[in-house]
C-alpha cells in the first residue's frame, strides 16, 4: 500500500482519467438529456437511435422480449416509443448502450459478465421497488443499472490496483468497498457518481450511485433513489445473480428497508420477477 501522498496522487490521476472518458453514444446522450428534462422533444433521441443501426436492432430485439410485454409487436423505434412509452424506451436504450460502452472497457481484472448480471438485477429490482412506492421506475432502473459503474472505471484506469483490491477482498472476505477505500482513498460509489456526473446523468442518479452503500446520506422523500438502489442491491446480492462464489449480501440499512421493501408475500413475488427478468435482460 502506498503512502497517503501516493494515494492522493493516484486519486487525482483517476479523476483526470474519468474526465477523459469517451462520451456516451449520441443516442444515449440524448436519452440522458430526456431523463433530466421531461419537456424536451424525444425526436432527437429517436433519430439518434434510428441512425445507429446496430443499436436500433438490439433495442428492437429487447423491446420485443417478454420482459417488456410486447413480444413481436415492436417493428420500429417509433413503435417502441408508441407501445412502450418514451421512458421505457430510455431504459431499454440504457441497457443496450451501457453494455456496449462498458464491455468495450474490458480488462482482465474485471469479470464483466458477473458485473452485468448483478447490475441488471439491481435495475429490475429498483424499478419494481420504485413503482410500488410511486417513484419514477425508469429513473430507478437506470440508477440501478449504473450503480456499480465505478468498479468498471477502476478496472479500466488502474487494472493492477483493481486486481489487488478485489483479490484482497476475496482472500480476507471483506466487503470490496472497505478494501477500495483503504487502497484508493475512495470507493466505487464515489467514482461511479463522478462518471455519471461526467456523462451529465440527472442529479438524482448521480446521488443514488454515490449513496447506494450509505443510504442514510441519500435525500429523503419521494426522490430517494439512493435508498431504493440500496435495497435493490441487497435483493440482487441475495438472489445470487452474479454467479460469484464469494458473493455476500451487504449490511442492509434498516430505515431504507422499512421504507422501500415490500411485505413478505409481496417480496416472494418480487424475487421471482427480478430473477426471471434479470436473466432475460442480461442475455439480451
Amino acid at each position, binding site marked *: 500500500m502506498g503512502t497517503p501522498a501516493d494515494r492522493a496522487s493516484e486519486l487525482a490521476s483517476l479523476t483526470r482519467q474519468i474526465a477523459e472518458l469517451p462520451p456516451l453514444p449520441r443516442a444515449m446522450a440524448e436519452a440522458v438529456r430526456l431523463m433530466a428534462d421531461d419537456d424536451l422533444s424525444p425526436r432527437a433521441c429517436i433519430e439518434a437511435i434510428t441512425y445507429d443501426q446496430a443499436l436500433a436492432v438490439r433495442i428492437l430485439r429487447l423491446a420485443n422480449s417478454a420482459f417488456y410485454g410486447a413480444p413481436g409487436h415492436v417493428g420500429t423505434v417509433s413503435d417502441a416509443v408508441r407501445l412502450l412509452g418514451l421512458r421505457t424506451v430510455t431504459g431499454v436504450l440504457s441497457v443496450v448502450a451501457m453494455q456496449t460502452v462498458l464491455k468495450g472497457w474490458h480488462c482482465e481484472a474485471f469479470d464483466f459478465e458477473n458485473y452485468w448480471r448483478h447490475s441488471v438485477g439491481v435495475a429490475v429490482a429498483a424499478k419494481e421497488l420504485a413503482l410500488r412506492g410511486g417513484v419514477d421506475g425508469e429513473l430507478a432502473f437506470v440508477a440501478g443499472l449504473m450503480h456499480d459503474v465505478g468498479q468498471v472505471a477502476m478496472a479500466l484506469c488502474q487494472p493492477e490496483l483493481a486486481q489487488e483490491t478485489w483479490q484482497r477482498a476475496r*482472500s*480476507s*472476505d471483506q*466487503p470490496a468497498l472497505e478494501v477500495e477505500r483503504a487502497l484508493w482513498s475512495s470507493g466505487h460509489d464515489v467514482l461511479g457518481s463522478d462518471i455519471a456526473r461526467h456523462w451529465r446523468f440527472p442529479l438524482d442518479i448521480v446521488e443514488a450511485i454515490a449513496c447506494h452503500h450509505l443510504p442514510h446520506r441519500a435525500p429523503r422523500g419521494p426522490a430517494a433513489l439512493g435508498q431504493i438502489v440500496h435495497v435493490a442491491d*441487497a*435483493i440482487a*446480492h*441475495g*438472489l*445470487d445473480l452474479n*454467479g*460469484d*462464489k*464469494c*458473493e*455476500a*449480501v*451487504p*449490511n*442492509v440499512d434498516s430505515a431504507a*428497508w422499512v421504507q422501500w*421493501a415490500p411485505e*413478505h408475500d409481496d*417480496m*416472494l413475488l418480487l*424475487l*421471482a420477477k427480478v430473477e426471471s427478468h434479470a436473466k432475460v435482460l442480461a442475455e439480451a
Partner: protein
Amino acid sequence: MEAVVRTKPEPRVPGSTPPSTERKAGAGERVDWLFRRQAGAEHPLKAALLEYRGVRRDGHAG
C-alpha cells in the same frame, strides 16, 4: 422447486472454498453463506429467500 434442509454454515476461513452456487443442492447453506455479514436477528430478506428457494424453516425437507 426442490426443498432442502438447512444446515449451520461453517465458520469462514480465509482461502477456504465457499458453498457452491448450485441452487438445488444446499440452497439453505448458500443463503446462510450469503448473509454471513448480517449481525443480529435473521433479516426479513433472508427469510424470504429461504422460502423462495424452497427451504423449510423446521429443518426438514418439504
